[in-house]
C-alpha cells in the first residue's frame, strides 16, 4: 500500500545564463533546462544550450535583422495563462519568386510548456500543439476533420528559417526548411509541419494585434492588419446566416398575418346592380351609379364584373369617385368570351372579371361607368358588384421584398470577404462555388458547436 513520504523541499529551479563562446556576451536561458539551442543575440551564434561551453553549432550572417515586435522576455496573459516570450524566428516562403515572411514567437510557462504566436502582416494567431491526430477525410487530401469541424486545405509551402533569436526546445538552424500545410476553418487554422521522421500538427486561433498588445502591455499600436488572412473570421460573423433566419421568420409572420387577414376580414357587399348596354343605341352610354358608403377602416375594394357574353366583348371604363373629396380611382376592364366547335369544343376568355383597388379610404362614393362594345353586338346584360374589405397580397409582397434587401446585401459582403480570403489560397480559383461551399462549411461547423 501507498505511503506518503516526507515532503522534500527542493529549492526553486533557478534561471541560468551562459557566456557566448564566440563573442563572450551573456546569454540568458529563460526556459530553465528546457532549451536545446539558444541563439546569441550579439553574434547570431547558435549554441548548444545543454552544453554551452564548447559548442557553436552554427553562425549565420543576416542581410536584414528582424527585431521581434514583442521583445524576448516579455510576459503576457493569454487564455488565462502567463507566458514569456523566449524565442523568435522569421520564416519565409517563396511563391512565384515573391518572398512572404512571418514571425513566430515561442512562448513558455514552466508548468504549461510551450505555445506559439505567429504574426503575418498584422494578423496574429495563438498556436498550440495538437494532442490527437486530425482525421484525414475519405473525400481526398483537401479537407481534414478535427473535433467535429471540417478544415479546408489553404496552402502548402516550404517554410525556411530566415532569422532566429532566443532559445528553443529543439534543434534550430538558420536556413532550415520544413513543409508546412495549412487547413482553415475560420477563426481556426490547423497546420502540419513535416519532416521524414516526424509530422507535427498545431492549432492556431486568430487574434487581433490589439489583444496581443493589451496582453503583453506593449507600447504604441500594433501594426495594422493588411488584407484578409487565411483564418481571419469574417467581420460579419454569422450575421448573414442569422439574417436569413430572421428573414424566414418575418416571412412566416407576414404569411400568417396575410392568411389571418383573408380569413377574418369582414367582406361586405356594398353595391350590386345589373345593367343592359345596347351597342346600337345612340346617345351617351356613360352613367353614374347611386351613392354608397365605404366604412372604416381603409381597406381594399373588389370590383367584380359579370357579363352575359357569347362570342363578343364589352369594355368598361370605371371610375370610383369620392363624393366629398372628388378623389377618383380610374380603371378599365375588358370582359370577353368566345367559344366554338372545331376539332372539339373550345372557349376563350371569361364572362367574369375581378379587380381589387388597394386601401380605399372610408367615405361616400359613387361609380361612373362607361361601357364600350362592338356596334353590331346589340344588347349586353352585365352586372357590377363592389365588395369592401377584400384582403390584398400587395403589402405582403412588398414586405417580403423589403426584408430581402439587407439579407442580400449582407450575404454579398460576406461572399466577397470569402472571395478575398480564398484568392490567397493555392487550392485553385476562388470561384463562387468554392466561396459558397466555404460558407456552407462554416455554418455546418457552427451547427456542430452548439
Amino acid at each position, binding site marked *: *500500500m*501507498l*505511503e*506518503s*513520504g*516526507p*515532503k*522534500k523541499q*527542493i*529549492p*526553486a*529551479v*533557478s*534561471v*541560468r545564463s551562459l557566456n557566448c563562446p564566440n563573442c563572450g556576451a551573456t546569454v540568458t536561458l529563460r*526556459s*530553465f*533546462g*528546457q532549451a*536545446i539551442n539558444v541563439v546569441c543575440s550579439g553574434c547570431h551564434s547558435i549554441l548548444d544550450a*545543454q552544453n554551452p561551453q564548447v559548442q557553436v553549432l552554427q553562425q549565420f550572417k543576416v542581410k536584414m535583422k528582424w527585431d521581434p515586435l514583442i521583445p524576448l522576455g516579455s510576459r503576457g496573459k493569454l487564455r488565462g495563462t*502567463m507566458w514569456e516570450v523566449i524565442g523568435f524566428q522569421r520564416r519565409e516562403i517563396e511563391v512565384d519568386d515573391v518572398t512572404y515572411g512571418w514571425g513566430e514567437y515561442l512562448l513558455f*510557462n*514552466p*508548468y*504549461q*510548456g*510551450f505555445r506559439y504566436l505567429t504574426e503575418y502582416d498584422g494578423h496574429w494567431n495563438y498556436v498550440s*500543439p495538437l*494532442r*490527437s*491526430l*486530425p*482525421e484525414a477525410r475519405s473525400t481526398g487530401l483537401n479537407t481534414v476533420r478535427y473535433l467535429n469541424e471540417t478544415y479546408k486545405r489553404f496552402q502548402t509551402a516550404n517554410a525556411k528559417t530566415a532569422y532566429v533569436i532566443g532559445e528553443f*526546445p*529543439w*534543434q534550430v538552424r538558420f536556413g532550415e526548411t520544413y513543409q508546412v500545410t495549412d487547413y482553415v476553418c475560420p477563426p481556426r487554422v490547423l497546420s502540419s509541419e513535416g519532416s*521524414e*521522421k*516526424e*509530422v507535427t500538427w498545431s492549432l492556431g486561433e486568430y487574434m487581433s494585434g490589439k489583444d496581443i498588445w493589451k496582453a503583453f502591455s506593449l507600447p504604441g499600436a500594433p501594426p495594422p492588419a493588411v488584407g484578409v488572412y487565411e483564418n481571419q473570421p469574417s467581420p460579419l460573423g454569422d450575421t448573414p446566416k442569422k439574417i436569413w433566419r430572421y428573414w424566414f421568420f418575418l416571412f412566416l409572420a407576414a404569411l400568417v398575418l396575410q392568411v389571418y387577414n383573408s380569413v377574418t376580414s369582414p367582406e361586405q357587399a356594398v353595391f350590386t346592380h345589373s345593367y343592359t348596354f345596347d351597342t346600337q343605341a345612340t346617345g351617351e352610354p356613360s352613367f353614374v351609379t347611386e351613392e354608397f358608403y365605404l366604412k372604416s377602416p381603409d381597406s381594399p375594394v373588389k370590383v367584380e364584373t359579370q357579363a352575359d357574353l357569347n362570342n363578343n366583348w364589352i369594355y368598361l371604363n370605371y371610375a370610383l369617385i369620392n363624393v366629398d373629396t372628388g378623389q377618383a380611382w380610374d380603371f378599365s376592364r375588358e370582359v370577353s368570351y368566345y367559344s366554338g366547335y372545331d376539332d372539339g369544343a373550345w372557349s376563350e376568355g371569361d364572362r367574369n372579371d375581378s379587380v381589387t383597388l388597394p386601401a380605399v379610404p372610408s367615405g361616400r362614393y359613387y361609380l361612373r361607368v362607361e361601357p364600350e362594345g362592338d356596334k353590331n353586338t346589340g344588347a349586353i346584360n352585365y352586372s357590377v358588384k363592389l365588395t369592401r374589405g377584400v384582403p390584398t397580397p400587395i403589402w405582403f409582397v412588398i414586405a417580403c421584398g423589403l426584408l430581402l434587401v439587407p439579407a442580400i446585401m449582407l450575404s454579398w459582403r460576406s461572399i466577397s470577404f470569402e472571395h478575398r480570403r480564398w484568392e490567397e489560397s493555392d487550392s485553385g480559383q476562388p470561384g463562387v462555388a468554392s466561396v459558397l461551399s466555404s460558407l456552407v462549411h462554416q455554418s455546418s461547423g457552427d451547427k456542430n458547436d452548439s
Partner: protein
Amino acid sequence: MTERTSNCPNCGAPVAFRWSSSVQTVCEYCKSILVRTDVDLKKVGQVADLPPDASPIQITTEGKYGDRAFVVVGRIIYEYEQGNWNEWHIVFNDGKDGWLSDAQDEYVISFQQDIGNLPPPDKAPVGTQFEWKKIRFAVTSRTNAHYAGVEGELPFEYWDKEDVIFIDLRSEQGDFATLDYSEPEKPALYIGKAVDFDDLRLTNVRKFEGW
C-alpha cells in the same frame, strides 16, 4: 500499513519504500542504485549527477487522474538527440501503478498493456497504423533514446541500458501509445491519454525562480 524500511548497504542511511511492489530504488543520500532481494537490498550501481532538469514534477508530487489520486515515487530520465524527457513512475491509492511522462511539459498518463504479438521496430515506420484495445493508432515518431538517470522507486531493474528504440503512436481521439524496445525481443506497450497540466491538479510541485 507501515512503511517498509531497510538500510542502504552502501551508506547505511534508511531506505523507505512507498510502494510495496517496487523492485528498485535509489538511496537519497549516496545515490546508490539498490535492488530488492528476498532478504535485503543489493547495490547494483551508482547514479551520476542528473542532467539539468526543468520538470515541475518531483518525487512526492501528488495529483489526480480523473478521480484517482496518485503520488510520484520514481522516475527514469531518457536522453535523445533533441534533449530529454521524464517518465515519472506514479502509484495510485489502489496500489496500481502507471507512468506520467513529461516531455517539454506535454503530459501523458499511460499504463503498461498485456498485449502480445507486437510488431518489431522495422515493421512500424511513421504513418503505420495499428489497432489495440479497439483504438486505431498511427505511428507519429520514432526515437532512439538512452537512460540518463534514475531516481526513486521503479517496478523493474533499470540502470545501464544501451540506446533503446521508442515508437510513439497517436489516435484521432487523443490516445497515446508507446512501443518500448528496451528488450528488443519482447517489446512493451504502454497506452494512455494526453492530460492537461491543470487537470492533473498537482500539489507539491517544484518552484521556478521568477514564476
